[in-house]
């Protein structure tokens, strides 16, 4: 036992010696947090951003209409010649593949990489997965930076604010950094790729309910979990719109995206009275909500789900009044293409805002047909139909 103690002391002593002999390495200073998107007390609603996103929905994106993943809204092109290089090692720090939306996107991304590998644009594609653990992802990013042989680092942050220092450190290493999906509170990266955003998503859904429901109708909001910015923005927008409407909000419940919980909660609300509309911040488990109405023998509600196929199929089968807001899944292709563009020194938008429009009953059947072979937890606007792996890669997961 004494020996372990001595060993422990030795380690400590070693650390101290190292401290005196080794110059502490220069570190990137942490973020100054000047661009915090939300205020410190956790308020999620920023009116300017909200209005901007709502406006962006109606703007015409620039770029090829048949390749929405290359389109951009209001692009402000940035020069990337400083990053021009021959290196071909692409590193990707993924937050996780812990939900079907991310799984779908991840497959699309891999297929896109395969294409570019064959064309010789990408050499090695290195991935680390943080399993939704922010600290793990910070380590993952640090590992890429320390390894020193990444020619570009793509980051899909697991939480916005928390990854900021790590992303800044990555930027400081001189490697082009591409962030997509959720953002970070810095603009040091070469480009930040995302669809219009959470406000637009939440507004699409809420506006549809306001539009289709009689004044005084009752709406239930189902949410996955608190504290995630992209989801909180959706809810903030919905609250804004419902607040200005004549709809009665029965409540908002966290479900963890678990079908059994969703069904239970909706069933309980139905026991206590009618529910005319369902607003969801993400479509996971939407079918369970619909089934709750079926099993209770009630009329279908007006519903905002997501472009997840199980919901869209249910929507078609039942003929209910619904909308599928979209958080463009095809965005998973864009960072790969952007990396290659940056290596070539081509200009890319500083902030690459991808189009994001909901699926309505007009184009629903079209999307269902295109994705006819796809599994039920697949996302309709995945944007990989032109990739060589289609459809097997998405079908046989």
């Amino acid at each position, binding site marked *: *036992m004494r020996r372990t103690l001595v060993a422990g002391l030795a380690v400590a002593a070693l650390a101290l010696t190292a401290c005196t002999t080794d110059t502490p390495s220069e570190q990137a200073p942490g973020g100054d*947090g000047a661009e915090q998107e939300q205020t410190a007390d956790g308020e999620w609603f920023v009116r300017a951003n909200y209005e901007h996103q709502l406006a962006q929905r109606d703007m015409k994106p620039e770029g090829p209409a048949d390749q929405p993943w290359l389109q951009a809204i209001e692009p402000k092109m940035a020069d990337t010649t400083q990053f021009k290089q021959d290196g071909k090692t692409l590193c990707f720090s993924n937050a996780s593949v812990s939900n079907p939306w991310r799984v779908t996107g991840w497959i699309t991304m891999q297929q896109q990489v395969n294409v570019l590998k064959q064309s010789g644009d990408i050499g090695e594609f290195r991935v680390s997965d943080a399993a939704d653990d922010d600290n793990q992802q910070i380590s993952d990013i640090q590992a890429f930076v*320390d390894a020193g042989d990444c020619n570009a680092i793509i980051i899909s942050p697991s939480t*916005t604010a928390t990854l900021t220092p790590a992303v800044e*450190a990555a930027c400081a290493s001189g490697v082009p950094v591409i962030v997509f999906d959720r953002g970070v509170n810095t603009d040091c990266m070469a480009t930040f790729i995302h669809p219009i955003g959470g406000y637009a998503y939440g507004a699409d859904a809420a506006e549809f309910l306001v539009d289709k429901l009689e004044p005084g109708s009752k709406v239930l909001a189902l949410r996955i979990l608190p*504290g995630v910015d992209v989801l909180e923005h959706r809810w903030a927008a919905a609250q804004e719109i419902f607040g200005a409407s004549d709809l009665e909000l029965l409540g908002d419940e966290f479900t963890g995206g678990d079908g059994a919980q969703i069904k239970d909660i909706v069933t309980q609300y139905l026991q206590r009275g009618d529910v005319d509309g369902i607003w969801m911040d993400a479509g996971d488990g939407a079918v369970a909500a619909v089934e709750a109405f079926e099993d209770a023998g009630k009329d279908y509600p007006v519903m905002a789900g997501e472009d997840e196929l199980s919901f869209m199929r249910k929507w078609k089968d039942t003929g209910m009044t619904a909308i599928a807001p979209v958080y463009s899944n095809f965005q998973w292709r864009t960072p790969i293409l952007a990396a290659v563009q940056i290596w070539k020194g081509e200009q890319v938008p500083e902030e690459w805002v991808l189009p994001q429009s909901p699926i309505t009953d007009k184009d629903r059947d079209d999307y269902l047909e295109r994705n006819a072979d796809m599994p039920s937890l697949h996302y309709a606007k995945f944007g990989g139909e032109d990739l060589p792996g289609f459809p097997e890669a998405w079908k046989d997961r």
Partner: protein
Amino acid sequence: MTATTTRPRLSRRLGSTELVYAALLGVLAIGAVLVAVRGGNLFGTANLVDMLTRSSLLGFVALGQTFVILCGSLDLSVGYVMALCSLIGATTMAGDPAKVPLGIAAVLVVAAGIGLLNGLIVSVLKVNPFIATLGMGLVIKGYLDTTYKGPAGEVPSSFQQFGYSRIGFLPVSTAVMLVAVVLGILYLRRTRTGYHMFAVGGSAEVARLSGIRTGRVVVMAHVLCAVAAGVAGLLVAARFGTGSALVYSSGYDLDSIAAVVLGGTLLMGGRGGIAGTLGGVLILAVLDTVFNILQVDPFFKDVLRGVVIIAAVAIYARRQIDRKASRPRFGNGPPPEPAPDPPVPVGQGADR
């Protein structure tokens, strides 16, 4: 008569802590070979830094968890304490370097308070620690979900150095963790309360009869555990630059228990130590790094971790059985077949 016979010294020399470090060396060796086959070097600076960084956060949590497990208790609320403390630290500091000490103090006080509550619920109300700390975790979760709608607060860049800078290949956070580990070892080996933790975990009744205030010891262990989780929360804040409630879903509660047990500490308490826990944490960190370098599928990682944890603990258990077995008097004849179902379980059934 057997009182005066001495057992072979070898079995005592190879304690479980040594075994843990032997396992760590084994994992390092296998990892190094696998990485080398892929043309890498596991002991390159980048990889070393990566391993050490990964060990720091879990290191703090597992360090604290060791105290409670040694006492025969358990803390499932550490993840929530971490999350809460990261938020309290970050919001108190609010980006002002002058408020760093205040933030640290606030965290330590809150964490100690939660530990105190845990300890009192376990020792005074006699609620099974599994349920007590699970319940406490829920209480904190509710508070977090209600109060913080997302990441909040801001950590000044000076404090972020705790999470990001390093001395040579040794990250500051890991260095602090190692210092904490040394202090923890000293605490267990050189203070009365430390001694008494082994006693309470070994047999609460014996400890009580020896005049040890078992309740206080358990409370102290829970306070230390919560404080360690609080420091982990500070590290989280330093690394995130802000406080985040979502840390609680990252599974540090069960991971820390796994690390402690992997470090050779008996889950029922009374035997083990922090040196072993550090070994357990390092094993998990090395596995993570190696899996990352080898680009192991994230889901396969979970499978491998599960298998490694079970296998390691099975090996410890096997040794425990061997050590308890009586010394053979007659060596001749065929060796006793390893019974597939030793009908009489080894160990003390009485304390269950």
